[in-house]
């Protein structure tokens, strides 16, 4: 196209000129911006990740795998996976319910509810952990009763789950709300006029329409749940082999100068996060057509 323009100008005798698209920058600027972006990604993302794996393998594969094979490491990995597996469905359910309420109904106090959902983003995880300790610790009214009945929350798995659920609470709802606002209520109303019950409408219309946002929110929630440190550190009591999750184990090993063990665990945690990321990308690629169709409509 630009060649054609230059040709025409050349034929009419005017001085040939190269035109640049209105939104494009000049070549040196483009080059500089690209390099800056690459350097940023390199320093902030690639280098730390590479270092984690390099440190983990500093004494070879065998040492790394042995360190992950011991009892405490295995227990930490199991605990992290369990806590994530409990927190994820809870937050998916809460998130769907909250987004549904906010986007499909008008009521007083809606703005307050949205603020409350965002609260975990603005409150420091350590503060959240402390709140759980104050509320459910052995010295509190509720906590004392629960401990007396053999169901301790703080320094036990329920506390870790609570802390994780609190910290990851906004992810699913935050992903869903804009999508559901954009889609409106018309499809649900159409399904109702066709005779479907509310429950059927949810499963056959609402849920399929939000599945990508839900998946994305769930993946973010998973990654954050596995990596949560601050809130869990306060409530877990860091009992090795019992309440130490992967991030907490990493910190303990690092403080004990067990660098191969610490970085092996860190590499394992990173690998888990990468798996979620790869999963998301694969799904996006496989369903690219459907995704595009959804957006076009």
């Amino acid at each position: 196209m630009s060649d054609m323009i230059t040709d025409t100008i050349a034929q009419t005798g005017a001085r040939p000129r190269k035109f640049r698209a209105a939104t494009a920058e000049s070549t040196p600027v483009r080059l500089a911006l690209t390099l800056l972006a690459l350097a940023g990604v390199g320093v902030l993302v690639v280098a730390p990740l590479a270092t984690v794996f390099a440190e983990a393998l500093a004494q070879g594969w065998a040492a790394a795998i042995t360190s992950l094979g011991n009892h405490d490491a295995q227990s930490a990995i199991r605990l992290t996976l369990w806590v994530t597996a409990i927190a994820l469905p809870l937050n998916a359910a809460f998130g769907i319910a909250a987004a549904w309420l906010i986007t499909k109904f008008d009521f007083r106090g809606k703005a307050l509810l949205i603020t409350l959902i965002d609260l975990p983003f603005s409150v420091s995880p350590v503060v959240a952990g402390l709140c759980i300790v104050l509320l459910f610790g052995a010295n509190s009214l509720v906590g004392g009763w629960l401990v007396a009945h053999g169901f301790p929350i703080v320094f036990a798995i329920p506390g870790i789950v609570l802390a994780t659920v609190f910290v990851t609470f906004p992810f699913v709802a935050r992903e869903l709300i804009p999508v559901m606002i954009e889609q409106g209520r018309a499809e649900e109303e159409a399904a109702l006029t066709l005779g479907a019950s509310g429950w059927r409408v949810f499963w056959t219309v609402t849920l399929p329409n939000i599945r990508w946002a839900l998946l994305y929110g769930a993946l973010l929630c998973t990654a954050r749940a596995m990596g949560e440190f601050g809130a869990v550190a306060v409530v877990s009591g860091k009992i090795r082999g019992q309440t130490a999750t992967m991030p907490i184990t990493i910190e303990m090993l690092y403080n004990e100068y067990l660098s191969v063990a610490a970085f092996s665990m860190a590499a394992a945690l990173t690998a888990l996060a990468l798996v979620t990321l790869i999963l998301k990308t694969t799904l996006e690629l496989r369903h690219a057509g459907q995704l595009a169709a959804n957006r076009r409509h």
Partner: protein
Amino acid sequence: MHIQIDEIAKSFGSSAALHGVSLSIPSGALIALLGPSGSGKTTLLRILGGLEFPASGRVLFDGQDATGMSVQERRAGFVFQSYALFRHMTVFDNIAYGLRARPRGKRPEKAEIARRVTKLLELIQLPDIGGRYPSQLSGGQRQRVALARALAIEPRMLLLDEPFGALDAKVRKELRQGLREIHDETGLTTIFVTHDQDEAMELADLVVVMSMGKIEQIGRPQDIRARPATEFVREFVCA
């Protein structure tokens, strides 16, 4: 089905949408609710369909009080302004939705559903698009699919909210004719909302002119044109 609307009033928050509207719609008629935006015509349609409930007044279907009847029980074929087709389903599944949503005892067999969907696709003159998704259809095709989906539930009445609003002039003319034909074929009491006076006058047996939540005039198109009852009608219809 004969529809009787009796002193229906409705407000949203502090603003009144309908002020005690009464209207009798004879069985099998094709009615236009005509008015500018904010006249309450869509609210009235949604009240008939069971998507909104009136603050006071009654709705009677064939003489039976239907005011509190749920949206599912009403069996009103509703065509939405933006068509509201299920974007993740094929055209076939969209049209079959209402039949599949029936309770087990009343649900037709799979083959029977397929037969009915095929018949409806022929009725809207789009026999080959069952496998497509709504995003792959033109505006006019979507509108016709929405109509077929509403007809699939064997509705007791047909309610259409600005059915031709989003279409260009040529397609609009064709589809007007299509709606007239489908109405005459099924004999369904049909009510459509429009702000386009040409559309109302050309298509409807009876036109209900509305403004500010009140009915200004009810009459046959030629009568409204010849004898507008109020200044508003004169300006709106003759503009």
